Every structure is written in C-alpha cells, then in structure tokens.
C-alpha cells in the first residue's frame, strides 16, 4: 500500500502557471476521482506523479521517496495516458508481452480474458485500433499490470456506453479483488461517481476540494420548487448552482443535509433531493 504526498507542488509552462502550490496526501487503497475543467492541471499533476515532466517547485513522494528518477517507486505505478505512447507498429499481444517484462505482476491470462470480453483483437497493430479500442487496449494493459498505483487519464475516451459500463465494472472487480490506489481523471463525472470514494477537484491549478464523495455530497442538498418559494427558503443560506425552467427553480444549498429545514420546506412546498456530484462540480468550478 502506497501513500502519495504532494508537497508545495507548482508547475509553470513558460509563464503560464499550471499548478499552484498543491498540498495534499492520497491515502492508499482508495479510488480517487481527479476532477477539474479543461486546462485545470489534472494531466499535469498525473504527469508529475510519474516523473514524465518536472515540477517547477515542490515534490511528490510515494511512501516517503521522491518519484524523480526513482525506479523502485516508478515501477509501482501504471499510468494510462490519454495520449498513446505505445509503438504504433507493434501488435497488441506483443505490447502485453513487453509490459509483462516491466511489470512483473502483469497477469497475461487476465489481459487475454479482458481483451476477449471487450472484443479487442490482440493480433491488431496499435495503429489499426479505433480511438475506442485504443482506450480499451490501454485500460486492459493498466488493469493487467497489477501495479500498486493505477492512474487513468480519460480512460473512457471514445468508448461507447456499453464498453464504458463494462470498464467501470471491471475496474471495481479488479479493485475488490486487490485493493490498490486508483486515480481516475475524467470529465464524465456522473458516470464515474458511483466508482469513486474520494474526489480531488482542481480549479485553475489550485486544489479546491479533497473529500470523500459521501461527505462532500452530505454537505449540500438540492432544493426544488416554485421560484419565489425557493428564494424565500435560501434567504440567509449559502447556495450555488441555480437552475430555473419556467417557474420551477432548483438550487444547491451548501449546508449539511442534517440542517435542512424540513418544516419550512413543507410549508413552502419545496422538495429536497441529494445533490448530484456533477452539478456540485459545475457549481464549484464555475
């Protein structure tokens, strides 16, 4: 089990600040969602975690060891990137074979089983795979690697709904069998929400939320009702994410779900519901 510590991490691309003094710890054996809008710094953070790029300031430590050029630490991480880094002229089955050499715990039988399940032809060259199947091939390699830490950057890119559902299920099955640290960076928040235990939300290079999903969602609720009644209910309350269709208004109230005023809501004809992670994300990052 590996603990990832991100300390004072800052990354500049020339004059553009991609990450701004991030500080947080990723506990082992959990599935994290790394969320943020386009350009928020998610991929930069994952690239830094695997030493593919270098921080301007700060460091990342795994079990107390700096990741920079550290083969022992790097060998415990598998990073499925959005972009393809595999030789395009190589066949999928050969890449499995080579991956087994670099990841000694790589499970070839499991890789073949997953390939069969997803309909991935392992005799095909990487260049001949569609966008969806390239994602499947990389995800299969990642899952079969059995690395202690798995990082996924947009793992469902180009996948149809069935394959996305299959992948989430396989990810959970893999995790259930062998709990490890998994970080998933994706824009499909609602889909992945059921898989996540914690979320890390980055906005313009800064960490704005790091919290268990349940706790985060318990800190807010959605109130829906007639616009004027909703306005009355939210008076003096913190809220965000107002949506209005005709006279029907809904708002995310930023207070503990236990503190909601059910009496007033009943009086005003307001319905309460659980906040959806995606809606909360949108309101937090807007």
């Amino acid at each position, binding site marked *: 089990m590996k603990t990832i510590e991100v300390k004072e991490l800052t990354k500049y691309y020339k004059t553009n600040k991609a990450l701004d003094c991030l500080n947080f710890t990723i506990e082992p054996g959990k599935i994290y969602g790394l969320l943020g809008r386009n350009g928020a710094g998610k991929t930069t953070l994952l*690239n830094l975690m*695997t*030493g*593919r*790029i*270098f921080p301007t300031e700060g460091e990342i430590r795994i079990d107390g060891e700096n990741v920079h*050029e*550290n*083969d022992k630490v*790097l*060998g415990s*991480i*598998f*990073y499925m*990137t959005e*972009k393809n*880094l*595999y*030789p395009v002229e190589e066949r999928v089955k050969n890449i499995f074979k*080579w*991956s087994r*050499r*670099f*990841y000694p715990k790589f499970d070839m039988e499991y890789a073949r089983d997953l390939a069969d399940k997803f309909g991935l032809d392992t005799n095909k060259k990487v260049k001949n795979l569609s966008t969806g199947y390239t994602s499947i091939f990389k995800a299969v390699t990642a899952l079969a690697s059995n690395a202690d830490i798995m990082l996924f950057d947009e793992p469902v890119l180009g996948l149809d709904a069935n394959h996305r559902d299959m992948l989430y299920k396989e990810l959970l099955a893999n995790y259930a069998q062998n709990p490890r640290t998994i970080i998933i960076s994706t824009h499909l928040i609602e889909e992945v929400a059921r898989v996540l235990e914690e979320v890390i939300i980055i906005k313009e290079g800064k960490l704005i939320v790091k919290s268990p999903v349940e706790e985060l969602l318990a800190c807010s609720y959605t109130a829906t009702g007639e616009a004027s009644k909703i306005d009355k209910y939210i008076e003096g309350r913190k809220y965000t994410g107002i949506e209005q269709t005709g006279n029907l208004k809904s708002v995310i109230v930023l207070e503990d779900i236990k503190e909601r005023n059910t009496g007033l809501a009943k009086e005003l004809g307001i319905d309460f519901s659980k906040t959806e992670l995606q809606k909360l994300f949108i309101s937090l990052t807007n």
Partner: protein
Amino acid sequence: MGTTLKVTKYQLYSFYKAVLVFYIIILMVSLGTIALAVKATEEVSFGGLGTATIIFISIAGMDCFKTGFKFMMANNVSRRRFYYGNLIALVVLAAFMALADTALSAILSSVIRYQSLTGQLYGFSNYTAEYLWSFGLYTLAACMGWFISMLYYRADGVMKMVVFITPLAAGIMFAFIDRQTGGQLGRTVIGFIGRAMGLTGGRSPFIGFLSLLIAAAVLAVLCYIPIRRAPVKE
C-alpha cells in the same frame, strides 16, 4: 533481469527487422558481385561495404530514441535506465554489425578481390584489427545519430534552426579561416585526424580503434545531458 537490460532487449528487438533487411540486401549485392566476377573475363574488384553499415547504424542511432523513450515512459522506466539500456543496445548492435561485416569481408576476399574499409585506409588488414576498428567506427556512428536526434528532440523551433545551421556555419568558418591561414588550419586538422586514426607513422588501426571509442564515449556522455530532463513529447 534488471530494468536496464530489459530496455536493451527491447531496443535490440526494435532494431532486428531493419538489420535483417539490411543484411539480406548486402548479401544479395555480394552474391550479385560474386556472380558477376565469376562470369567476367576481367578481374572484378569490390569494396567498402562498411560505408553502407555506417549509414545504416547512424540512422539506427537517430531512430532509437523517440519511439523507445515513449514506450519506456509508458512503462514508467526512469530516464537513467533508458539511457544505459539504449547505450548498451547501440554498442551491442555495433559489435554485431562489425562481426557480420568482418565475416562477410573474409568470405568475399576469399572469392573475389575485395577490400574492406580498414584495408583501403591502412593498406593492410587482419581480422582482429578489422573487427575492432569497425566496431569503434560503428559505435561512433550510432552515438552520433543518437546525439543528433537528442538535440532535435530537446530543441524548440529556434534551437532546431541553430542545430541545423551550426554545422554549416562551422564549415563556412573553417573554410574561411583555412584560406586566411594559407591552408594551415586544414593541414593541422587533417594531421590531427591522421594521428588520431593511426594513419600517420606506423599505420595502426588499433590507435584508430581507441580514438573512435573515445569519441563515441564523449558523444554518449553528451547524450545524457539532454535526456536527463527530457519530457515526453508527441
């Protein structure tokens, strides 16, 4: 097997098809020449297959970095391990090609009038000298290719132009200074190369071998500087 040797194995695996095709072509050319020599009424001479190998191994050196580096990054191999693994692969490739060329040279010279590069330069050749000299030269050529590809990989748009223009500018500058000094610079450089390659005095390919290895080692060390902090690029 350590990570470095795994990298070496992968790099050699990525070379093998091209090497195979290269030697098939060389064999066909050699067989064609032998056939021609058998049929010809006049003596047919043939030589310098090593030049083709130098071109081939330089290109292999240029080609060894980008794809291999990306694949090793995909497998979370450190840059240091990739560097050592790649260097060993290039040295092994140079050793193999020197051996193949020496063997081919031995076969060809027993059938037709063939002269290897070593024979042409030093006026004599034995197999040990030919092998060692070729090995040194091929290692240097491979490292040169690798170094050029590293410079291009790390350079941005302006630096790429600088890398491209610098040898041309140096050549023009050399010619200018040489003219100004009445050919003194050219004679000095040629004299230095001649001594370093063991072409002056006692004519020793072994001195040439040592000088080529030193030059290759310098280039190999220089390759480490740009690779140390090389980012993964598309």
